[in-house]
């Protein structure tokens, strides 16, 4: 086959030695697993932080044994202080959004499967790829460092609104070096993500196997590709924003700080900056970030649903175009985070319409998924259950968007638990369901051993019911006007809501505990699971045409040739009801 220069350029020798094979690996599969492991570590920490927050909210005076060892100042005697609550909240949000929701569905699975699904031996730039991971790891370590320094982690939330985040240690505990570390960590993270996104785009455009036209790429490859395009633009804005924030904090500039501020009885030596500038820059990244988290899961879920239904979607093209429209619209809606921020009220109307319009491609996708279930023969297993659960969660999290997209309703629901419920369901839970589905589906390919199906299904039921029990009541709290980011409810008004808060906390602790089943299953199956065959799910795409786990160069030096659209199911093939993408046998239609 004809090889492009890009293909020749990236080929690297088989890895030798422990370090090259498992640590500083250039292999996209190892890097994918490294991202997955990092996301797993980050999600465990993020979840533990949420337990502490939920516990503190409803049992504020109950001692948490051992917590004082982690932070003497933050939890003296094992009781969380208001400022430490905000530190936990900031770190929870930052870990989850950046190191889990960006890393797991996009960087981890994308790295492992994108090159394989397009028939490439590796990423276009393997060294950049290794650098992306190690840069991301460095960002993680810098962030975590905030837990151990005397100043403690920052308290300004994952959105780090200026001037609270910009004026330095006068703003409160954690706002000295803790905040510096946050800004440096996120700047480094942006560099890693930019490198990753460039690599994904170059790989998709340049390294496709012969016959792999763009429309023959699997839907999840499309999702990773579109996500890369979004990430390239989004992180390119957050990076300079973080640099400006660091300059304001350390070099005496005033990008985000106006004159005349008196913080902690000290007149601040700044003038001329705009706090709204930070909000604009942050949300210009922040809203597309939501789609960076959810689009890969949409792709993964589509991929798994098709395999489980044993028939193609009603239209893969419509799904791809919908994902593109969502990606495009995601650039025009950032202002809906700022309806009550003091931004010109006319711009609220301008931001409201595209926000409401995103509902249309999102509904089209949901209807295509559900309409495709009609007349199928759905196999039920842990992977497909999580994929179906994703649809349910996506709808539940999506409909609350109707409320928040309208500036008039946002006046009463802004900054309440309604918002917390909305984004946790749609961006957090739905996206993580995609990751769970992907894990149960691809674990065999990634490790050579299958995950335990019984444990997987048990995990699904507990998680599905548990997450609804946690996040649906958040909406009710918001409808009453319960404000978020409060470390304690000290007034009479929120008193009657305490039983509901207790219910949420208990549900969160139980659902969190259920995740131990998943962790156990991962570790147990990695070593004791049944050996994975090459194609355990009778799939059609290229990852199922190579051994489990794949050799270092994926296709053993061969160059696959593609003859079909990715999802030839419900046809008469030589192996059953499907035809592989690289099989030369004629497809039915």
């Amino acid at each position, binding site marked *: 086959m004809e090889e492009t220069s890009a293909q020749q350029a990236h080929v690297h020798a088989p890895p030798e030695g422990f370090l090259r094979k498992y640590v500083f690996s250039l292999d996209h599969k190892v890097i994918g697993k490294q991202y997955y492991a990092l996301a797993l570590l980050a999600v465990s920490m993020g979840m533990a932080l949420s337990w502490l927050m939920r516990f503190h909210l409803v049992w504020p005076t109950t001692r948490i044994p051992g917590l004082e060892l982690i932070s003497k100042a933050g939890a003296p005697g094992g009781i969380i202080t208001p400022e430490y609550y905000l530190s936990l909240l900031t770190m929870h949000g930052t870990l989850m959004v950046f190191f889990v929701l960006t890393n797991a569905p996009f960087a981890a699975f994308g790295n492992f499967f994108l090159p394989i699904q397009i028939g490439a031996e590796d990423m276009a730039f393997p060294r950049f790829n290794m650098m992306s991971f190690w840069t991301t790891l460095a960002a993680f370590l810098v962030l975590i460092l905030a837990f151990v320094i005397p100043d403690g982690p920052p*308290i300004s939330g994952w959105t780090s609104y200026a001037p609270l985040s910009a004026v330095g240690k006068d703003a409160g505990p954690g*706002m000295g070096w803790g905040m510096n570390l946050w800004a440096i960590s996120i700047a480094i993270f942006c560099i890693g993500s930019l490198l990753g996104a460039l690599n994904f785009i170059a790989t998709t455009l340049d390294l496709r196997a012969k016959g792999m036209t763009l429309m023959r790429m699997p839907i999840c490859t499309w999702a990773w590709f579109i996500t890369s395009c979004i990430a390239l633009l989004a992180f390119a804005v957050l990076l300079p924003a973080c640099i400006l924030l660091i300059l304001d904090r350390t070099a005496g500039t005033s990008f985000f700080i106006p004159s005349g501020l008196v913080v*902690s009885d000290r*007149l601040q030596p700044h003038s001329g900056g705009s706090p709204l500038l930070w909000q604009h820059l942050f949300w210009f990244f922040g809203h597309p970030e939501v789609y960076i988290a959810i689009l890969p899961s949409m792709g993964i879920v589509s991929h798994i649903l098709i395999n489980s239904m044993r028939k193609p979607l009603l239209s893969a093209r*419509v799904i791809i175009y919908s994902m593109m429209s969502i990606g495009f619209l995601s650039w025009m809606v950032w202002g809906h985070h700022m309806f009550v921020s003091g931004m010109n009220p006319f711009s609220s109307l301008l931001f409201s319409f595209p926000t409401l319009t995103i509902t249309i491609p999102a509904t*089209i996708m949901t209807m295509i998924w559900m309409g495709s279930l009609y007349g199928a023969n759905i196999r*039920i297993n842990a992977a497909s259950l999580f994929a179906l659960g994703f649809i349910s969660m996506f709808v539940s999290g999506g409909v609350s968007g109707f409320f928040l997209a309208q500036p008039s309703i946002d006046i009463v629901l802004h900054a309440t638990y309604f918002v917390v419920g909305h984004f946790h369901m749609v961006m957090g839970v739905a996206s993580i369901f995609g990751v769970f589905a992907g894990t149960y589906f691809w674990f065999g390919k990634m490790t050579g051993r299958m995950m335990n199906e019984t444990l997987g299904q048990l995990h699904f039921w507990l998680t599905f019911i548990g997450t609804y029990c946690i996040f649906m009541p958040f909406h009710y709290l918001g409808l*009453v006007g319960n*404000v978020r980011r409060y470390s304690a409810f000290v007034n009479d008004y929120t008193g009657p809501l305490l039983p509901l808060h207790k219910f949420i906390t208990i549900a969160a602790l139980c659902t969190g505990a259920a995740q131990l089943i998943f962790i156990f299953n991962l570790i147990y199956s990695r070593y004791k699971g049944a050996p994975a065959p090459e194609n355990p799910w009778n799939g059609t795409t290229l990852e199922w045409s190579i051994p489990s786990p794949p050799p270092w160069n994926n296709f053993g030096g061969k160059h696959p040739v593609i003859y079909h659209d990715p999802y030839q199911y419900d046809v008469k093939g030589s192996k059953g009801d499907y035809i592989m993408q690289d099989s030369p046998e004629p497809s039915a239609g």
Partner: protein
Amino acid sequence: MGKLFAVVLVIIALASAYPIVTHMYVMPEDISTHGHQIDEQLSDTMAEAGISFLLAQFVLAFFVWTFAERKIGAKLKNFPGGAKVMVAAAFILVGTEVLALGVFGQRAWANVYFTPPRPDALQIQAQAGQFAFYFRYPGADGKFGAIHPDKIDEGNQNYFGLDPANEIESRDDIVSAELAIPVNREIHLMMHAKDVGHSFYVRELRIQQDFVPGLDLSVHFTATKTGRYEIVCTQLCGLGHYNMKAYLNVMAQDDFEKWMKQKASEL
């Protein structure tokens, strides 16, 4: 297992809708002249979103119930009309919904933000700082004294940084930790942030507006019912954020005048 999924999903959907349908959790009663439009918009949206939510979950449950784990080799078929029907339906149903919500929703927003305050509205300045609100009334001269950030001295209760020694306007300014207002009279609240971002949220007034350092923002509203209501900060402002609150005291006109006199005599 597919049937179990369907049953669990229906139970979850019904259980989720129950507290909404029975109005278990609702905003406290509206006491503003503009709030009913927001409430109507909220309940219209709740109806549309609620129906979409239930319909989608029920259809998902029904399809999984019917089409999961059929016999091996069962004949597969496609939804009549295929993707075109789905796309058209989504455009028509959601498009109409979006347009309706978008267009009608603007009225409530416009009422709050696009109508200027009446010329005779009572002007009050609100200042938010870590972690308290203070309110200032212009006094008999109807003018606010200038703010001098360098003169802010909380120990001496000079919260706004006034300079009464040199400026006549600030001598009769009344400063209060409580927002006392007369009922049925429009209030023009001018918002000033002392240090970092804060927000002014009164649930019963259906008003929420951020304080942004360096920006002169204002809101205007009319309260229609006397009583004492909580003002809370909704913009994360530091360690005392959870405890940053004040009270709105809506009084009868006579009581308000008495209150003003009392405050003025304390100067």
